[in-house]
């Protein structure tokens, strides 16, 4: 099996989907000859031609809107927004059109599109290139929001997103694009779009996270293990619709939970998860749910971003706080 990094896994999934299904088209800025600024679409233009791998003018709202039209016609567009910092004009298309075409037409028209965008901080990128807007996307009814944290999960989830009959926003953590490699079987097998991934079992506390923060959370679990605390780790890669069952079941067993994410604390997706736990695991909770998140501030520029991103130390400290409740 080939060892791939996350961006290569995305590339393989795109190539596989295009080879399997002639209705899959890729569009976006610089996705063609250049192969995408992160090389996610590398080689696709040469292999599938410029009718299916389309370099667009610089116009994000129209990229998303064009994808809506294509999808309504039965194509499977995979549109790239170069960075999530530029996803805000497309949110109009997502809210007012993509996510509700099925509802508005009582199922007559559907919108099987995927909007891919790199997201998150930690790569010393310029201004507007490091934000994590998953919660504002996950709040849109009718839309799926997926944020993988490993090459194999990115591969299987992207295939699932492309095959899904509804619109999916697929966010890719830039910090993990080249951070790690793992064996990825390019077998065309999709992963379910509504299951969390249990990355580590642990009876004392449940650490819930997604995206690049999975790395710091796993490190925190390791640190805690050295202190005699068995921490489980759940990767909520499919943020919306949410796999409440897996999270609630785990916290019912441990009674303690830390939720960690890069996006700002208030109204972050961690707030939704905490509310679900309060509703469905209340009787099992032994400590208040702890959240470790970005602050309610503008994402700082690179020289200070490390102070903003949830660190292993902050996650471990939150877990110790939770363990401190008798």
């Amino acid at each position, binding site marked *: 099996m080939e060892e791939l990094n996350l961006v290569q896994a995305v590339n393989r999934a795109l190539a596989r989907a295009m080879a399997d299904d002639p209705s899959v088209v890729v569009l976006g800025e610089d996705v063609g000859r250049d192969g995408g600024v992160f090389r996610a679409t590398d080689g696709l233009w040469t292999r599938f031609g410029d009718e299916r791998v389309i370099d667009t003018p610089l116009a994000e709202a129209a990229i998303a809107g064009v994808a809506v039209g294509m999808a309504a016609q039965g194509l499977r567009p995979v549109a790239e927004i170069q960075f999530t910092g530029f996803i805000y004009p497309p949110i109009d298309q997502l809210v007012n059109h993509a996510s509700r075409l099925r509802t508005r037409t009582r199922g007559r028209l559907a919108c099987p599109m995927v909007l891919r965008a790199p997201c998150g901080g930690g790569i010393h*990128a310029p201004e507007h*290139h490091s934000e994590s807007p998953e919660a504002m996307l996950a709040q849109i009814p009718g839309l799926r929001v997926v944020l993988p944290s490993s090459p194999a999960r990115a591969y299987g989830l992207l295939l699932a997103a492309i095959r899904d009959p509804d619109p999916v926003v697929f966010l890719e953590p830039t910090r993990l694009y080249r951070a790690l490699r793992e064996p990825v079987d390019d077998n065309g097998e999709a992963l379910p779009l509504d299951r969390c991934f249990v990355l580590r079992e642990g009876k004392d506390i449940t650490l819930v996270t997604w995206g690049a923060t999975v790395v710091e959370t796993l490190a925190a679990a390791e640190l805690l293990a050295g202190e005699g605390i068995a921490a489980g780790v759940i990767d909520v890669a499919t943020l919306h619709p949410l796999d409440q069952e897996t999270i609630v079941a785990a916290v019912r067993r441990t009674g303690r939970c830390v939720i960690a994410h890069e996006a700002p604390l208030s109204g972050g997706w961690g707030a939704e998860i905490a509310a679900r736990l309060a509703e469905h695991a209340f009787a099992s909770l032994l400590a208040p749910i702890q959240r470790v998140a970005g602050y309610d501030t503008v994402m700082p520029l*690179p020289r200070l971003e490390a102070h903003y991103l949830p660190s292993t130390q902050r996650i471990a400290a939150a877990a110790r706080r939770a363990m401190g409740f008798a």
Partner: protein
Amino acid sequence: MTASGASLSRFIGPDGLAVAALPDFARDAAELVRLYRAMLLTRAFDEKAVALQRTGRLGTFAVSLGQEAVSVGVAAGMRAEDVFLPSFREQGGQLWRGVTPLELFLYWGGDERGSDFKGPRQDFPICIPVGSHPPHAVGVAMAFKLRREPRVAVCVLGDGATSKGDFAEAINMAGVWNAPAVFVVNNNRWAISVPLARQTAARSLAQKAVAAGIPGEQVDGNDVVAVRATVERAVERARGGGGPSLVEALTYRLGDHTTADDASRYRDDAEVSPHWAEEPVLRLRRHLTATGAWDRAREEQAIAAAAAAVNADADRYLATPAQPRETIFDFTYAAMPADLDAQRRAALGGA
């Protein structure tokens, strides 16, 4: 008239010879030398920025190699009290208006203090989300108009940015309101890997003004005299109540898109090399030399002076400690809300 139907203004050709009677400012050799030195400073800044980036001491950076005449010429066509709204490749204009190399290094080095300009206090910070700033220029212009101030907002954007809805919306609104705003398209023929022909089917970008009902014209963007004269005329017309306009400056991106880009993936040397004969610094040097205002000794002295100015600020930049981490919070609101202050205190407590 050019093939596009708009007239292209040019005073100095690629060989450095005047092709038309020069505007008044350009008959003053000292003024031409000032423009020339500003382009040299821009080039020196870009070179240093790339060197710092390559050695891990600066973030991703967008060089303006070959486009210095647009940036400098636009700023030279403005008055100090006007407001400049630059894209991310207009360091030449920013430097002309008094933004320091230190501030630019700080910004591109990932430090917000780089946008706290000590010189042009009302100029906008660099705009990274492409094409999202033309509406700001309309708003700035309408504030001037409301207060009866004879000032003009000048927005520079790229050819790629003209594909954004925000741009079309802004020039349309400026036209309706007769806003004192000038929009300059720095047409370097590329938007990362996308060449102009794949950006638009329009024969020129200047003609986008037609639909907005405002004047549009093309200028040779490698002729700093033409850029300055054209922008000055547009700015003074706007100042006098004559309304907004669009200027398309034709130049060429000689370098990679940014330090994160490798242009050899999508364009070859044969495409790029002819444009080196057109580039603006060489052109003005030829002109100055031909008119006896310049020689090798002055050239060497000027290059050394530009490098020294840039290097001194690079040293200051490298010696500038990072901001304390509480500054992540401190500028979010005018006054610190209690709710955010709680986060701030927790962060400082290490929790």
